[in-house]
């Protein structure tokens, strides 16, 4: 049996890698993949605590998060396709359509 905090630390490390990816990259799709990485790190935390407290609600939450991540991926990638059609790039620094 592996202690719960091992999983929590792994999840924290993965979340941190995702944060660094969002902060340092310019490619919109890579930023999006970093966000997916962070979502997965949070899922791992939910499952670790669900096992620690014998509470199945954590698993149901992970199920809903997966469904919402699928919706988010579909809409987000559609936004990037639309951005690419307008700007010929997915560099997020070029996406300044709404700045003032």
């Amino acid at each position: 049996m592996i202690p719960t905090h091992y999983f929590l630390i792994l999840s924290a490390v993965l979340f941190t890698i995702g944060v660094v990816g969002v902060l340092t990259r310019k490619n919109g799709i890579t930023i999006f993949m970093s966000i997916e990485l962070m979502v997965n790190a949070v899922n791992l935390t939910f499952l670790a605590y669900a096992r620690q407290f014998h509470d199945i609600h954590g698993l149901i939450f992970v199920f809903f998060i997966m469904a919402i991540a699928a919706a988010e991926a579909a809409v987000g990638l559609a936004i990037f396709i639309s951005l690419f059609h307008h700007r010929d790039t997915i560099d997020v620094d070029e996406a300044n359509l709404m700045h003032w």
Partner: protein
Amino acid sequence: MEFAIFFFFAAVAVIFAMVVVLHRNPVVGALSLVASFFALAVMYVLLDAPFLAALQVIVYAGAIMVLFLFVIMLLNLQHMAEPATRPIQQFLGYTSGAAFGIGIVYFILKYSVFMRLPEGPFIADARAIGIRMFEAYVFPFEMVSILLLGAIVGALTLSGRAVKGGRAAIGEEVGR
């Protein structure tokens, strides 16, 4: 044995996650993310959640990452050189990320160290999840299905290119 599996797949997950963040080619990044998600599915099995491990492989590594790869290849991004980020942004990103990581690991080790699990087996298979979900979570479940329907409509609306006199037909999308 269990610890060996844990540390091996934890190393796989972390290394491939770093490849996602550090590699310049988004195709390599997407494939590394698939590998990282597979390692996380192993973690879910170790956490007594085999049903969610299967969902992780099918939904994340299967459906979502194929969508990512499909968009990367559709837009031909693998040949597009990504411009370097400004040094100040690199510096701030890495230092604040490292500070965040060190802080969160410190607080986990300080406040969230569990040495024992509660007694008895933890039953978290598809049957247990299904019973609980359709007892107490029917309404959120239906909301999620409506959300997915809305996401489909939104994705179709956003990705179709608007041209004069209506939407472009599917064949016309190629010649930009």
